[in-house]
């Protein structure tokens, strides 16, 4: 992203370059969908094999914390969308400010998530940390394993997204990122952010709302 020229080596014109970047990002996000898809398949099989126990296990999660976190992420997506709109219009300060707000909301999400983990840890629900577990059945244990892997992987993606947005926010605000010529940079980063949001939109009902 150090490019300041608007057309780089293999491309003939800016339009071609922009299309390639968009297509590349969509394809990359497709691979991310497949990555989480494996986890969703695990969740589906778990529910098929042990429907009643999965529902019981899901009831032990904090529905309302999850709901608040969903709202936080949805709002951050709105901010990113607004930032991208600013970037396309060449409004540097607006771009930086919205991106920064979105990244902050991402951090809020992570903070809430950590708080939620600590609650679950105290309740003896969170495996993998050596503390004695108070899960009632083996399947609940397996469900919590899946919960930890899925939300952990999502949190990792979000963390990457936060760093990405912060870097772009600073570069945009300081003018090192030429706008609107290089608006493609916030646009593609925004696509990534929205996808992380979409994944949470599915994780939330599958993990928290199994009834």
């Amino acid at each position, binding site marked *: 992203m150090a490019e300041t020229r608007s057309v780089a080596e293999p491309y003939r014109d800016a339009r*071609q370059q922009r299309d390639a970047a968009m297509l590349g990002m969509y394809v*990359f996000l497709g691979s991310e969908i497949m990555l989480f898809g*494996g986890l969703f398949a695990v969740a589906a099989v778990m529910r098929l094999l*042990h429907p009643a126990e999965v529902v019981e296990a899901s009831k032990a999660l904090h529905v309302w914390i999850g709901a608040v976190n969903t709202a936080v992420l949805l709002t951050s997506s709105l901010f990113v969308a607004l930032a991208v709109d600013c970037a396309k219009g060449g409004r540097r300060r607006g771009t930086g400010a919205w991106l920064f707000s979105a990244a902050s909301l991402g951090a809020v999400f992570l903070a809430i998530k950590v708080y939620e983990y600590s609650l679950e840890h105290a309740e003896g629900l969170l495996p993998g940390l050596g503390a004695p577990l108070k899960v009632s059945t083996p399947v609940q*244990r*397996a469900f919590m*394993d899946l919960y930890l892997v899925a939300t952990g992987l999502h949190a990792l993606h979000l963390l990457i997204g936060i760093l990405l947005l912060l870097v772009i926010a600073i570069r945009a605000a300081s003018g090192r990122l030429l706008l609107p010529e290089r608006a493609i940079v916030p646009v593609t980063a925004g696509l990534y952010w929205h996808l992380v949001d979409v994944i949470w939109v599915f994780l939330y009902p599958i993990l928290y709302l199994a009834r």
Partner: protein
Amino acid sequence: MTALQERPEQADRHDRGLSETDTERQSYLRAGHSLGSWFFTRDHKRIAILYLFAITAFFMIGGAAAALMRLDLLTSAGDLLTNEGYNRAFTIHGVIMVWFFLIPSIPNTFGNFLVPLMIGARDLAFPRLNLLSWYIFVLAGGFTLFVLIAGGVDTGWTFYTPLSSMFSHGNVVLAAVAVFIAGFSSILTGLNFIVTVHKLRCPGMTWDRLPLFVWAIYATSLILVLATPVLSITLVLIAAERLFGLGIFDPKLGGDPLLYQHLFWFYSHPAVYIMVLPALGVVSELVAAAARKPVFGYKFVAGSSIAIAVIGFFVWGHHMFVAGQSMYASAVFSFLSLAVAVPSGIKVYNWAATLYKGHISLDPPFLYGMTFIGLFVVGGLTGLMLAMLAVDVHVHDTYFVVAHFHYIMVGGTVSAFFGALHYWWPKIVGRTYPLVWGRLAAIFIFLGFNLTFFPQFLLGYLGMPRRYHVYAPEFQMLHVLSSAGASLLGLAYLMPLVYLTWSMRYGAPAGDNPWDATGLEWTTPSPPPKHNFDEIPVVDRPPYDYEIEMEGEDG
């Protein structure tokens, strides 16, 4: 007659190897001599060379592991290695050959080198991503070598749970990390090719003028992007189980080991097509160039690549017929596996038809192409036999399966890799190699291969399970035969290494188009300049547009 067969002038002969041609001076090979100019290059051709070095090294390591196994299998008591040692040998053989040789072999070397040249582009869509992909690959390879040094891993390349997650004593986590990282390289490479083929074709290069090799690489890339992430997440789950005890497949927690197999084969069956589709693309090029004719039924051959890529995603369950999957699922997977035979069959029959009324040259690329076709047909048809449920119950997990997939992977993909190497070598280095040696190597590979792997079909049907190094004495003769073949095969694989290296310095300059072939890559100088084309070409002709020659014209 092709330029290759024209011997250079006598004066040239004394001189060659010492003098550098003008073309060479302006080529990508001479565009910078420092190490940095190679290791920080963004030129797709140089990255292809970097890959070529890396995978050659891995091919040799994987081959050494195979040699060790074949040596051990000479006696039925397995005198050379311990049980554990043998398990580690075949695991490292599998892991290295699958992820560090076969999957990147043709796409990352020839795909990288040729796709931009063939579609009239100056580079891939994301040159930096391309270089990053190589570094990720090398990092993953480093991890693998570290696993090797640290004592190896003993689960087989399939990492089946709960053996890998709860019982193995090997470095499963490290190996999983290595493959996980290699997966990123695969995904980024696939993504790069997809975008390049969509967005960087030169004017006039419509989809129905695309070389069949590019079609094949495109289909491969779709699989790379769609299948690899599923493997990645599956490996994450295994590592999580070993590191933190997060037992998602643990039967004691109500998990199902078969779920692991479903996820693993959802990747690994399409991965077979990652390995073989580029080879099919190469052979289409070789056959057309050797026959000097358009490939018979271009549209069918191009479409069959896509069909194989798509249908390849619907058949993974045929690895699980005796694993305890539902009988109905098995029947459906068996049927769909037969469906893959249709596009594969189309290709083979169409290649045969391409030769009809051609002007066939028996140069090394063609011989490798024929080696491919012969061995691929045997591998494919025995694959159909394996898709038959009742037969699979008997031969599943035996040497029959081992023989079958080596006919496809080694007989097929590796032969095509060597075919590609012999066909495009003059383009890559700008020099020609001795054709006689090329032909000899091809013949030795064909013979050595069959001697190695045909006896394994018999072994398998006799009931010799795979991954055994202590076996019943009645299998010994066939094993000795197989090991003898493997020695021949190993030597045959070393031959090209010698004469191709020799040719880089002493070979005659190749000229732009030594095979007199069509395709944009042959319109550039050999070796091509850094930016491929001074002016982006414009295509106004169908692919493989060989002019009709009159008989005896070149006699």
